[in-house]
């Protein structure tokens, strides 16, 4: 009986360790669907339509960038009489109002300056101020919601608008690319991340017919669709973009990703800035998960959003920190209960990791070679130096069984049994520890001279674990019921067309 229980316990541990492979397999499935997108996409249903489009630009102290943004929007390849720009100035205290008044005078009837006297309530409130004005008049047939700092490539709006020829489509989003110039290491990590999270993941979502989120910096809505969801953006959460996307789809319309419409955006260049932005997004995702708790994996409630693949994609990202911690903790327990079994399961997990890493990295580079040329180091080091070393050790055992000990002996060190076991235990706990090291990178960034070590910590721990650490922090904030504050990401206007 005791033996049976022990065997059952070991079985549970093996299952929990291998649950760590769920996000990897989900990523693999997502990337496999991109190939299907080659033959199953929405380009077959597009037509040369250019609906009268009102562009809403929320702006708070964007004096440095908003003038250029307005000029670039007006200069887009789109019929002149079918484009209007509404900048909603969220009680800015810098030069934004003056810059906008000048633009209104320069482009009468094409640029509007909508001023909010009471600001700071968040982007959704600002957008709603603009939407109220736009929808009060029947001129607009479509509404493009953007950020003040983004740069649309000339044909981006036209490429997005062509999908609205299909009345089944309610909203279209574009491929947001990191455009900071000069770009530091973090910008390059974000650049690579956006290939996987946007260019890749959203193509897969096109195939499923269910979109996770319309990018906040580029979302084109048909008027009908926007009115169907109440003509306003949800103001009760930190994930207004995701709520808008879900509401659009729950109203029976499709949200489509147009990967050939390129929009450049400036993303944070410090871990502190990135942490703030991503914590807001991650907390928003916790709120979405709770709000739609009756939807997940229930196809009968919503054919697409309730689908199995969509749910797996959502939860594999949302629960990734828990998968990592569970996997690590179970490996360590298994090590003390049955070391050879722990070693075999560890091997299986990391071989899976290696194959998925190779597939995802190479395919991401192939999807966007332009970004890959700039961010290839960050793409390769996305999981972190230590995880890469573990992948190498798993895939090329002689490297670590024979060559590393040989090098250590040459250096006068005698690798003994204890060292080998310490190395094995370290490898087992690394999945969890990588998040701690990534968190340490954030702490170091604000510690005077120590901040120089911060990038090194990110490269060692990996950018992926950094995002997991942020998601884990979001669980804690939401569990504590922390106040929802809108921390605007600092923009400096250094985005440029590549």
């Amino acid at each position, binding site marked *: 009986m005791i033996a049976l229980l022990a065997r059952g316990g070991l079985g549970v541990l093996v299952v929990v360790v291998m649950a760590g492979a769920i996000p990897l397999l989900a990523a693999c499935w997502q990337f496999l669907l991109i*190939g*299907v997108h080659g*033959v199953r996409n929405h*380009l077959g249903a597009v037509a*040369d339509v250019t609906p009268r489009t009102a562009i809403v630009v929320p702006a708070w102290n964007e004096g440095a960038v908003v003038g250029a943004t307005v000029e670039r929007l007006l200069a887009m390849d789109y019929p002149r009489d079918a484009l209007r720009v509404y900048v909603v100035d969220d009680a800015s205290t810098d030069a934004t109002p003056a810059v906008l008044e000048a633009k209104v005078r320069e482009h009468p009837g094409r640029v509007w300056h909508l001023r909010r006297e009471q600001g700071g309530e968040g982007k959704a409130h600002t957008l709603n101020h603009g939407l109220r004005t736009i929808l009060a008049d029947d001129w607009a047939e479509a509404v493009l919601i953007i950020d003040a700092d983004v740069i649309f490539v000339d044909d981006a709006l036209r490429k997005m608008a*062509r999908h609205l020829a299909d009345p089944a489509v309610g909203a279209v989003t574009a491929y947001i690319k990191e455009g900071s110039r000069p770009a530091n290491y973090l910008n390059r990590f974000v650049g690579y991340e956006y290939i996987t999270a946007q260019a890749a993941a959203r193509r897969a979502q096109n195939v499923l017919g269910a979109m996770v989120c319309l990018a906040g910096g580029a979302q084109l809505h048909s008027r009908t669709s926007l009115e169907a969801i109440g003509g306003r953006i949800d103001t009760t959460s930190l994930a207004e973009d995701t709520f808008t996307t879900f509401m659009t789809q729950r109203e029976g319309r499709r949200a489509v990703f147009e990967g050939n419409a390129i929009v450049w955006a400036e993303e944070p260049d410090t871990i502190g800035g990135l942490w703030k932005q991503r914590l807001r997004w991650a907390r928003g995702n916790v709120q979405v998960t709770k709000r739609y708790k009756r939807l997940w994996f229930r196809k009968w409630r919503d054919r697409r959003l309730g689908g199995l693949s969509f749910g797996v994609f959502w939860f594999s990202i949302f629960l990734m920190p828990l998968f990592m911690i569970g996997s690590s903790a179970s490996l360590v327990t298994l090590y003390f209960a049955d070391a050879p079994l722990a070693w075999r399961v560890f091997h299986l997990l990391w071989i899976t990791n290696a194959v998925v890493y190779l597939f995802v990295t190479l395919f991401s580079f192939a999807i966007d070679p332009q970004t890959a040329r700039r961010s290839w180091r960050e793409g390769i080091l996305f999981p972190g130096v230590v995880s890469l070393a573990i992948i190498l050790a798993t895939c090329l055992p002689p490297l670590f069984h024979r060559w590393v000990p040989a090098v250590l002996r040459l250096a006068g060190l005698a690798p003994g049994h204890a060292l080998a076991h310490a190395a094995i235990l370290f490898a087992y706990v690394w999945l969890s520890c990588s998040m701690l090291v990534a968190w340490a990178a954030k702490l170091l960034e604000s510690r005077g001279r120590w901040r120089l070590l911060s990038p090194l910590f990110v490269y060692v721990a990996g950018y992926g674990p950094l995002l997991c650490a942020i998601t884990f922090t979001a669980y804690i904030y939401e569990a504590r019921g922390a106040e929802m504050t809108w921390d605007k990401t600092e923009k400096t206007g250094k985005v440029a067309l590549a």
Partner: protein
Amino acid sequence: MGQDREDGEGGARVAVPADAFADAVRHDRRFERRLLLKEALILLAIALLVAARALFLR
């Protein structure tokens, strides 16, 4: 740029200017199809790597 289209009366194929919109859509569809090809090539390369590892690193 142009493309061959069938002339309605004689059935002869003549080159007529293709409009920019159709060209852009064709270009984008080709890009999407190429991703399928790239994916197949990458998967093949990984399969070869895995096979090589199984053969040489027993």
